[in-house]
Structure formats: structure tokens, C-alpha cells
């Protein structure tokens, strides 16, 4: 189950390719204008996957803590995993997306602004969530994305080690910068379904780790150029 918390700027529907099937949204459900059943959209590819879109018209104050809690409680009767896709920033939408979480996947780019923002979000996870307020702790995972190992080797990009040293959050996945991502979102197909592409492999690894598997890390080192590209001048 996926919930888009980016109220005002709905976009998960477009990335998932179900934008034309959106009728009701999260705010409709919270305000009692539609039932959960009416608002859920079943994914075209994965049978057990549903999504609850964000509202485009209401402002973010239409989300209430009690409303979100009711929705999540109701969904957890039927679903094993509920993904709350957080909007950027540290405003209400982001705070509500994280509030009831057990685990957090911190999607970060190897860029100063992104790493700094992630650090602030970690601060919020450790203070302004139900788990934290009950004296517990949310399991944090780092998903480093748009990683270009070639530029890292050239000292032009923060490395995985740098980011981990700064943030001190265990790694769940490393996603390379990949042309497949834009191609997939153009078509409305989640990139994980573009089988064989680097990004799909990396996301599949991340999912497996989230489900408890231990896997070796890929895409951290630049590809060794093969015999042919060396001989025939595989220039970038």
C-alpha cells in the first residue's frame, strides 16, 4: 500500500502511471467524502499493490493527525506494508507522513543540500514521531540515489562512505544515476519493472534488503572498462 502525502502537488499517480484512474484522494477519505475502498487504486502490474493519491486542490491543513491515524489503522488491517511517500520539506505533510512510522527510508542524493536536509529529517524522526514520543526509535535506512561512481572516483561527488560517515544511518541501497529512471517515468512505469537496467537491479536489491536479505553492494565502484571499449576508445 502506498499513500502520497504531497497534498497540493500530487505526483505519485503520474510516476506509477495511474493518473487517469484517480477519482478520490486522501483528503476526501479523511473528510468522510469517500470511503477508503472507493479511493484506493489497484496497481496495473502488481496485484497486491494499491495506492491512495494525494489531493491536488486542498491545502495541506486539510490533513489531520487523527484522520491520518484512522486511515493508517484501517489500512493496516489489510496490508502488510504501508509506504507513506513524504513530500519534500519539513512541513505538515512530511511530519504526518513520518508520524506513525515504524521504519524510515531516507532517500538522499550525494549533494550538500540533500545531505543536510536528510540530517534535519533524522532530527524530526527522533523527536516528532509517535515512536519517539513513546520512548522508542524508528528504524532508519539510508537510500543513496543518483550516485555516479565515476565522479566519486574523480573527487567530484561525495562518496557513499562520506555520506554514511556524516549521517551515521545504515545503508539499505545504492541507486546509480541512470537514464532508465527518466525513460521509465516518461512512460509511467516504475523503473523497477524495466528489467535488466542498472536502476531496476539496484532498487530490487534495496527491496530485498528491506525484507531482511543480506546482499553485496553493487554500483559503488566505477565499471571497469572492458577489452572492447578500451581498444575501440570507449570515451565518455
Amino acid at each position, binding site marked *: 500500500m502506498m499513500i502520497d502525502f504531497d497534498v497540493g502537488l500530487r505526483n505519485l499517480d503520474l510516476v506509477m502511471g495511474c493518473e487517469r484512474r484517480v477519482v478520490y484522494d486522501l483528503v476526501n477519505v479523511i473528510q468522510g467524502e469517500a470511503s477508503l475502498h472507493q479511493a484506493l487504486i489497484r496497481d496495473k502490474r502488481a496485484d497486491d499493490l494499491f495506492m491512495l493519491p494525494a489531493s491536488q486542490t486542498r491545502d495541506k491543513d486539510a490533513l489531520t493527525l487523527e484522520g491520518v491515524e484512522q486511515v493508517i489503522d484501517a489500512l493496516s488491517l489489510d496490508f502488510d506494508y504501508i509506504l507513506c511517500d513524504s513530500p519534500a520539506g519539513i512541513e505538515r505533510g512530511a511530519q504526518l507522513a513520518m508520524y506513525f512510522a515504524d521504519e524510515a527510508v531516507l532517500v538522499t542524493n550525494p549533494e550538500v543540500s540533500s545531505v543536510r536536509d536528510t540530517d534535519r529529517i533524522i*532530527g524530526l524522526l527522533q523527536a516528532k514521531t509517535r515512536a519517539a514520543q513513546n520512548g522508542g526509535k524508528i528504524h532508519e535506512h539510508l537510500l543513496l540515489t543518483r550516485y555516479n561512481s565515476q565522479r566519486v572516483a*574523480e*573527487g567530484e561527488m*561525495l562518496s557513499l562512505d*562520506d555520506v554514511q560517515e556524516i549521517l551515521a544511518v545504515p545503508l539499505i541501497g545504492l541507486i546509480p544515476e541512470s537514464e532508465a529512471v527518466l525513460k521509465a517515468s516518461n512512460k509511467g512505469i516504475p523503473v523497477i519493472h524495466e528489467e535488466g537496467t542498472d536502476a531496476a537491479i539496484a532498487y530490487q536489491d534495496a527491496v530485498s534488503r528491506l525484507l531482511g536479505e543480506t546482499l553485496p553492494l553493487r554500483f559503488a565502484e566505477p565499471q571497469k572498462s572492458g577489452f572492447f571499449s578500451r581498444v575501440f576508445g570507449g570515451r565518455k
Partner: protein
Amino acid sequence: MRFKELFQRNEETSASAAKERLKIILSHERTLRGQPEFLPRLQQDILDVVKRYVAVSNDQVRVQMQESDRLSILEINVTFPEKHLSS
């Protein structure tokens, strides 16, 4: 070691600059975490008052709030240069 690294060694790369800057700003921001929003203004007000009596610089006045379950402690630290203590 790769050939290129021989030349890169002592030269600061942009990635290492990024890392250093992040470390400094984040260690600062982490100390501010969980502090009430009025604290920077309170710190400035106290600094202004202290300055009327003693010549202190901005970093000699520290204001911090410590919260536990039952009480909050507002801690104000003013460090004077040694000679001011005797008078």
C-alpha cells in the same frame, strides 16, 4: 594506486570540500536541535545586556535549554576573560 591519484593527492577535491562544509554546519545545527525557537533571540538579548557592563564577544555567551521529564533548565553561560574576575 591509479596514475591520476598521484596528482590528486594534495589537491583538495570538491567532494572533500563538500564533506568538510557539511561536517561543520551539521555539528552546529545538531546542537540547536530540540531547542525552543526563541532561544537565539534570548541569547542576543542577554548578550546585549552583558555587553553594557563587560566587553564580551558573541561567542562568550551561551544559552541552552535542557529538558527532562519533570523540568526544564535554562542554562546561561557567560565566560569572562580572567582579568574581569578579580575586580
